[in-house]
């Protein structure tokens, strides 16, 4: 089954993406919990704003990092995992 890139990811209500200077990393905060994101997840997370669809996010990161093979697949995979973990909703 192929991934529909016209979906717009939004953070689940009550989930907050932010930069933590003390950890020098982006984190996802939620009720009584926190996930420290790796660099690529942080780059993707920074573009989740409830406006951009997955295709737009892929295009923007492709512009920033041209020539990275399988960039689109990696981003799709992030979306799948984030949805399965209920961090995001795909609208």
């Amino acid at each position, binding site marked *: 089954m192929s991934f529909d890139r016209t979906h717009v990811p939004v953070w689940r209500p*009550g989930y907050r993406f932010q930069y*933590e200077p003390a*950890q020098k990393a982006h984190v996802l905060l939620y*009720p*009584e919990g926190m996930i420290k994101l790796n660099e690529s997840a942080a780059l993707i997370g920074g573009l989740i704003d409830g406006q951009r669809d997955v295709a737009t996010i892929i295009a923007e990161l492709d512009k920033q990092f041209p020539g990275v093979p399988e960039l689109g697949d990696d981003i799709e995979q992030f979306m799948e995992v984030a949805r399965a973990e*209920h961090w995001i909703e795909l609208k």
Partner: protein
Amino acid sequence: MPNTGSSSNNLPATPEVGLPLWLLAELTYRCPLQCPYCSNPLDFAAQGQELSTEQWFRVMAEAREMGAAQLGFSGGEPLVRQDLAELIGEGRRLGYYTNLITSGIGLTEQKIAAFKEAGLDHIQISFQASDEQVNNLLAGSKKAFAQKLDMARAVKAHGYPMVLNFVTHRHNIDKIDRIIELCVALEADFVELATCQFYGWAHLNRVGLLPTRAQLERAERITNEYRAKLQAAGNPCKLIFVTPDYYEERPKACMNGWGSVFLTVTPDGTALPCHGARQLPVQFPNVREHSMQHIWYDSFGFNRFRGYDWMPEPCRSCDEKEKDFGGCRCQAFMLTGDASNADPVCAKSAEHGIILKAREDAEHAHQTIDELTFRNERNSRVIVRS
């Protein structure tokens, strides 16, 4: 790195001190409820004056600077603080993820809206049971249950994520299916099915609270069945089942290690590495006298059980000490009289018999709910005197 203790042993080096990612602000010990398993200290009625709004602002700002990201407002019942909305607003402004941990008693729809406006991220409501009568008996309040239901619905209506917390014990754990169904109906995002941990008032009432192994196993099996059902339905509600360590053979990695992630500040400003530590014969620093930087990195209390040098046998030579840190210091102190000892939950502990005896007691206990000692000022004063 060499350790500084006697040179003949091969203890691992004391790890670098982590960031205090979690700040728990126990705003007050005042509470309209009287739950017999409250984790507040038995002598709460004898504690000093509460911190002021400005003092809390300073504590929050300093801890945030040091990396704290999660901020919990608890108590007692934090809603009795008249400055709660102000404290929430400041916490959010500083960049914290703000959690209100409440019984729901004293909450109104107006307050729920005002806290949202102030920037509150999440509300956790604690329930005592799924059943109105048991809930009210345990909470020592006649109207508690209906109020909690109303407030849980209002929390969701105002767009908050919601955690429902059920403390389970021998009197309500057999109704776990009804508890879960209630939580799902209320659209909880997370459900904590937390079997009583035996600290504070719960330790005092242990015989009347500890479920039997059969009760526990049944509850866990039913929880797993509901997990599978929820997942199959794509329901994001997550069930968190907390077992009482009395049925384990190895201790829990309490607080993820002493002074490693958690920093609790009690109503009178005493800073603790966990909310149960006040009872230990260890001197803990107070935020009225010291900076949070000093408290976390340099104070005696926060360094007392960091690393491995303090450990006697059997922990000292144990190959699991880096995994569980010898268990819980408070439990070791309460049950063996020495906070450095191995947590008796561990089957390697010379005092493990205490835990075996407690399990045995659970098979024969017949205490009813109204025979438990309720957490209130009168009992607190009587207990402290005796």
